[in-house]
């Protein structure tokens, strides 16, 4: 009985509530005779497309700056990368691949990802320098810097000289559109690689492979010398200093990797969704990713890749199922959105109130 109680405590009550809720939703789906197989496909798709964004939480938590509430910084960089890739297509950059449309799209997204990683990395370094000056308030500062960047980019989207007809408002409008269709560029390209159906469930193999490969890369990093040092710097800065480690440098490395993953993550997300969403759409994405990581078992001070994989599955899966189920119960409502707000913020609150017990 005691073991059970202790196991329950360490596993966390909110996690259990969410798992039960998730299962309940599936049961309800069955009750309402919904197409569970398609739903499962949705779950898999959302899991894979959000994965890398949530993965960004791991390097930031491990290097000691806490969950990356300012993920929007990396996301903004990724969006710019994607937009440039679209511009390049219009400028004839991929002409040599015109014979094979699939290949052309693949090249398009690879260019987008490379640009995203580059831009976001640079932004990440500056972000890291800032975060080093605000030790102790990383979470609040990163939240508001993230919001400020979104607001700033809002202005930029209106001013930057993009010309592609896919991206900008047609005749009479200024600036980029709110949602930009990726059909011409790289919509679904990862999802469709090696994708197959099990019954009516679609498995987006390509995206899953990309996600898992990225997880592997991050995992390999944690087992390299730099990774080990970075984790020590995050877990106990005094210990690291005594070992001659430059803690500030490690924090910048972690922040940069996290921001870069944010950039790559949004490109992967967009290709699955089929649209690039600008302006205020990414505003709360940081919070959702933090919540997903926390649900998977991470805490303010500790995160492992397994937490990310599990947490994204639970969180996004729950949303994937909740929306249609809620529609069945109360048609045309945004009940699932409301629950998403309650659950994601609730878990963050829970993690914050417990954080004090994990005194380093």
């Amino acid at each position, binding site marked *: 009985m005691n073991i059970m109680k202790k196991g329950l405590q360490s596993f966390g009550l909110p996690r259990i509530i969410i798992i039960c809720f998730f299962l309940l939703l599936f049961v309800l789906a069955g009750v309402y005779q919904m197409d569970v197989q398609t739903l499962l496909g949705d779950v898999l798709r959302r899991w894979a497309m959000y994965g890398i964004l949530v993965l960004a939480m791991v390097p930031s938590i491990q290097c000691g700056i806490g969950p990356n509430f300012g993920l929007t910084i990396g996301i903004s960089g990724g969006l710019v990368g994607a937009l440039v890739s679209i511009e390049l297509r219009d400028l004839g950059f991929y002409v040599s691949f015109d014979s094979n449309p699939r290949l052309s799209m693949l090249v398009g997204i690879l260019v987008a990802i490379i640009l995203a990683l580059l831009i976001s990395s640079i932004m990440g370094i500056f972000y890291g320098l800032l975060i080093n000056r605000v030790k102790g308030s990383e979470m609040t500062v990163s939240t508001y810097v993230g919001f400020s960047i979104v607001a700033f980019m809002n202005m930029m989207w209106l001013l930057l000289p993009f010309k592609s007809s896919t991206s900008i408002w047609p005749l009479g409008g200024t600036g980029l559109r709110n949602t930009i269709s990726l059909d011409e560029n790289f919509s679904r390209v990862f999802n469709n690689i090696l994708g197959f159906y099990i019954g009516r469930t679609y498995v987006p193999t390509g995206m899953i492979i990309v996600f898992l490969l990225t997880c592997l890369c991050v995992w390999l990093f944690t*087992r390299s*010398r730099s990774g080990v040092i970075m984790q020590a710097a995050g*877990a106990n800065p005094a210990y690291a200093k005594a070992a001659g480690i430059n803690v500030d440098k490690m924090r910048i490395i972690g922040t940069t990797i996290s921001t870069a993953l944010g950039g790559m993550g949004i490109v992967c997300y967009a290709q699955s969704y089929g649209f690039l969403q600008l302006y205020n759409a990414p505003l709360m994405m940081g919070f959702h990713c933090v919540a997903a990581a926390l649900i998977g078992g991470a805490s303010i001070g500790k995160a492992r890749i397994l937490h990310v994989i599990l947490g994204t599955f639970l969180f996004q899966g729950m949303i994937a199922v909740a929306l249609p189920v809620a529609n069945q119960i109360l048609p045309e409502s945004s009940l699932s959105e409301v629950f998403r707000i309650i659950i994601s913020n609730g878990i963050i609150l829970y993690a914050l109130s417990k954080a004090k017990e994990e005194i380093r």
Partner: protein
Amino acid sequence: MDDEYVLQMQHITKNYGSNQVLYDVSISVKPGEIHALMGENGAGKSTLMNILFGMSMIHSTGGYEGTVLINGEEVKIMSPQQAMEAGIGMVHQEFMLIPGFTVTENIKIGREITTPTIASLVFGKDLEKLDRKKMAQDARQALNTIGMDIDENTRLGTLPVGYMQFVEIAREIDKTGVKLLVFDEPTAVLTESEAERLLEVMRMISSKGIAIIFITHRLREVMDTADSMTVLRDGECVARRTISETNEIEIAELMVGRKIEKLVDDSVKTYDLAGSRVAVSIKDLVVDMPSERVRNVSLDILEGEIFGIGGLAGQGKVGIVNGLMGMYPALGEITVMGEYLELDKLGDAIHKGFAFVSEDRRGVGLLLDESIENNIVFNAINIKKEYLSNFGITKLINTRAIRRHAQEMIRILDIRCTGPQQKTGSLSGGNQQKVCLAGALTLNPRVLMVSEPTRGIDIGAKKLILEYLVKLREKEKTTIIIISSELAELRSICDRIAIVSDGRISEILKPDASDADFGLAMSNLRVGGDQK
């Protein structure tokens, strides 16, 4: 009614679990008397005062045995609030003051004088208005009592640090019915003139009938100011004297002397140092470590020597190693085997062959959430890039090699654990220390510096560790520097022992020097002179 004494603590005994901290300690203070409470670190002074103040850490760990009498009446003080009501005040080492408030406000924190308002009639006393005029008057009076002429309306933050302590004293005096004031190492952070001033104030206060308990190491101050004293040693009361009947040497002996337990067999210590070259040469080392300032230290340590550094807390011995390892800003000329050590380059010491085992195991010494094996090999991975194996273009950690090595160290040092993968945070203090030591040894250092190697470790493990260090020196010719506040362990294995006092080397002694020599070396201070 035994009214002669304002405070009597009789036969006080206190255990923290199985650790006996105080045994049958008694202390008595007369009204208007300045009574010094002396003893080394860990002697039990703080615990005794915590009992007097009703601090929660005493009651939550099983309370205490013995009686406390104030003016002859027995009291059971269960909270600082009660202590205050009983007339006991304390001037802390870290000031309990608010720089943003005025002197008056600081003197009156929590005890502001108020007048009722309409709102307070409805909502309670909390909404009464502050009577700033009366508060200023009281503050003025308290300040006058101790002879301070600072304007009671100035913001505290604009005053020099030395003045702040006086404000704290004023606050204690202002409390009605204060009978006894405890001063905990009050001169530790003061300049010479400020300290003089403080002692004057103490005399002024005591002349008004308020008794004072004065906790200090500084013998000169005790001889100059106190009327009587009590010496604690290892949780027991070893002496009670009136100052006029004793002298500095006797006090020093009382503080230090104890029967030396043979921790290590004599037969083990047969190492011949003749002809050894200098391993570590320290010239004019200055370290800015806030509580352990090093003012100027010069030492030459021979290769293969087991060199001890001792002294009282706060005198600088811990600062020496922290400065060498780069944890705090330091200046000086340090050479290791002829190689110059760059003090401002982080980690240079480790790269040049130093390994350091910190006294702060949980804070600086370990990654509590990581396994034993990861802790042991961390620095080897970090500095020497060992325990890595190739993986394509990168190198990754070699778990198998790490585990093998960890199991070896567990065996050698007899680390009690469930296995190399157990998290160090769940180990006992002694075993944690062994893991720290293992980590340092894994580096095969040329110079091993160990700070408080056996603090909190049981006697069996103590012997094991000390014997291991001696063996290590014999086998590998490792130079070992031990920093410790336990003279006994230093005297049992060191070839030479340097005593640090007030940031300087007071004396370098052989282990068989007399107790008095050690005691005096440790209490050697600048206030008043008597430098050796």
